[in-house]
């Protein structure tokens, strides 16, 4: 593994290997001194060309727990505003001594382009509505630690599939690891076609509720002007929101997940978000372990897996 750009680039064994390593890092993070010297002397650079704090912080925490140094590139205050090209920007970050670049960019395929330009490993921290591979890994790890395995699980991904890199990444990871994925969304929030996707599609959350093990709620991207793709937030909530009533109709042991940040009262009710059985915060914690596994694999692990 030279880069982490797209879940589709990974086979089942690669996915399981990364999750196994991440289990090891969960233990490291639980130690009195939650830090190992594995990447001492390495520099991990984060360049988030699209605003995001959570993912960037999670990567930086992961890098530091591996004793790597971190550099943060802030596009808002940089020469990008002076018209520097993306290529020159990432080449500059590499020339400053970065050993690995974590990159988020609004353009699909941006991380892959950077990987072509650079000689250091590149981790895709999200490219447009395309991929967010570490989110998929942390979600798969969360499910695996809860259920032991994803084999045979029924997982519903609910909401804005069309514009969601989380959905595009997660459904590949979940199904590659043996789960069956159902996409639940109104037609306007589904991609133009899902014909060649390993999924089932349903327009009704209420129909799938009693049979699923995991309900994965996507964030309603209110900032995208949801009004044009569904009539109103209230109507969205009435059909696709995870209310307390719907939570009660899940089968015993079923869990609710969300990549955050949550729109409480829209796709998820307060009572569901704060339920002790909700995995939302565990997802966040496991995100650090998964990102440690990725950084360690790319910087300390075997060169060609």
């Amino acid at each position, binding site marked *: 593994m030279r880069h982490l750009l797209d879940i589709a680039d990974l086979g089942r064994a690669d996915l399981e290997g990364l999750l196994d390593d991440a289990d090891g890092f969960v233990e490291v993070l639980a130690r009195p001194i939650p830090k190992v010297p594995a990447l001492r002397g390495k520099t991990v650079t984060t360049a988030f060309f699209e605003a995001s704090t959570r993912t960037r912080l999670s990567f930086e925490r992961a890098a530091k727990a591996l004793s790597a140094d971190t550099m943060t590139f802030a596009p808002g205050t940089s020469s990008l505003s002076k018209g520097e090209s993306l290529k020159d920007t990432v080449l500059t970050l590499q020339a400053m001594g970065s050993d690995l670049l974590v990159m988020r*960019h609004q*353009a*699909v395929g941006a991380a892959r382009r950077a990987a072509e330009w650079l000689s250091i490993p590149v981790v895709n921290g999200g490219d447009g509505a395309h991929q967010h591979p570490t989110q998929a890994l942390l979600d798969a790890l969360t499910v695996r630690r809860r259920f032991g395995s994803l084999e045979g699980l029924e997982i519903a991904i609910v909401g804005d599939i*069309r514009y*969601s890199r989380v959905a*595009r990444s997660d459904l590949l990871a979940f199904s590659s690891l043996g789960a069956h994925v159902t996409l639940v969304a109104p037609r306007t929030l589904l991609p*133009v*076609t899902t014909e060649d996707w390993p999924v089932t599609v349903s327009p009704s959350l209420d129909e799938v509720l009693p049979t699923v093990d995991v309900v994965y709620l996507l964030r309603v991207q209110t900032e995208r002007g949801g009004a044009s793709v569904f009539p109103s937030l209230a109507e969205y909530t009435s059909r696709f929101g995870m209310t307390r009533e719907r939570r009660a109709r899940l089968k015993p042991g079923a869990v609710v997940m969300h990549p955050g940040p949550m729109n409480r009262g829209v796709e998820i009710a307060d009572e569901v978000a704060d339920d002790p059985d909700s995995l939302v915060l565990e997802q966040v914690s496991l995100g650090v372990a998964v990102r440690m596994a990725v950084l360690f694999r790319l910087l300390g692990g075997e060169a060609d897996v």
Partner: protein
Amino acid sequence: MSDILLAAGIVMTSAGAMPADLRLGEGGIIAVGPDLDRVGAEVVDCSGCWVGPGLVDPHVHLREPGQEWKEDIESGSRAAAAGGFTAVVAMPNTDPPIDSGHLARFVADRGRLVGLVDVFPAGCVTAGRAGQRLAHLDELWAAGVRVFTDDGDSVADAGLLRRAMEYLVDLGGVVSQHAEDRGLAGAGQLHEGEVSARLGLAGIPGAAEEVVVARDLAVTRLTGGRYHVQHVSTAGTVALVGAAKEAGLAVTAEVAPHHLAFDHRAVLSTDPAFKMYPPLRRPEDVEALRQALADGTIDMVGTDHAPHAAHEKDVPFEDAPRGVIGLETAVGVVLETVGLGSVDLFTRMALAPARMAGLADRGRWLAVGEPATITVIDPAVSWVAERFHSRSANSPWRGRALRGRARHALLRGRFTLRDGEVQW
């Protein structure tokens, strides 16, 4: 100056393709036939090659005036000559756009000065390509413009299109349409389908092209004008064009080599070399386009040669400008993807575009008395496109092996390409 004898090729005549020599002298072609007298002639071996009328590209972007860092008329002419072309129709979406006589004359004059190919400027349909009011059509006509287009954009207003067509009926000009409905195309980046869904990018449905063509064909029927569809990309457009021809409308259509060679799955790589409008479509569209070029529903090949500098394409897919270069690879790509015979190849790449664009002294088979504007194609040679004469190298065929290439080209008796070398 001694005569030139193109020896032992397969010569394209009105009676078909026949093994023959061709003797060129003062005043053009002076003899056609087997085993011609070689005395006093410079003999150029053409064995194994097809000898036909000079190739014409009805659709290129030479970028001059205004974007000379991408291409200019000199570098574009070299690229055309290298590809075996002897004439090109230059699209008017330059900066400023070619919407008046003096601008058209500038382009044609620059082409004459370079002297490698005839550069025929196309003119805008609307002033400034703004789609608001008609350009100076008479003035453009007087400057030699025969093809009118707002290429890069559709003429969106059907009323304006009607007026342009009606006006051009009297003159005999043709409206050449870049068919793309702005509303349906939206912010699309590639064909709307499995690949756009997988990548999470906005797509352009085939309908974006088809609604414009369908509407324009109705306007063509209404006006009795001449209509040319640029870069057909879908099976649906092929069907519309076929039906219009059957109904007797004066319609022609072109297809670009990249639409014959690749389908939208190539975009999964998010390599900007595969970004063009109209976008690469489904495999079944590619199949329909190949079939239509073979059977003549699509009349001609237009490369839509669209140079962009390396730094402009060396960006993420979404940020890249649209278009690829095509002049230097067209012959090989068309031969490989459609497998046309010699007569069909010269029909689609020389005669039909010359007739559509109303080019004087072109559009006919080789015969005594015709001008010595000739392209000699070696259909079997294998080669790799690595370096380009074009100022830009945004080609999806870069580094790929191709089979078939122009070996010689002459423009009115003068070699512009000889043994694969541009005579410059």
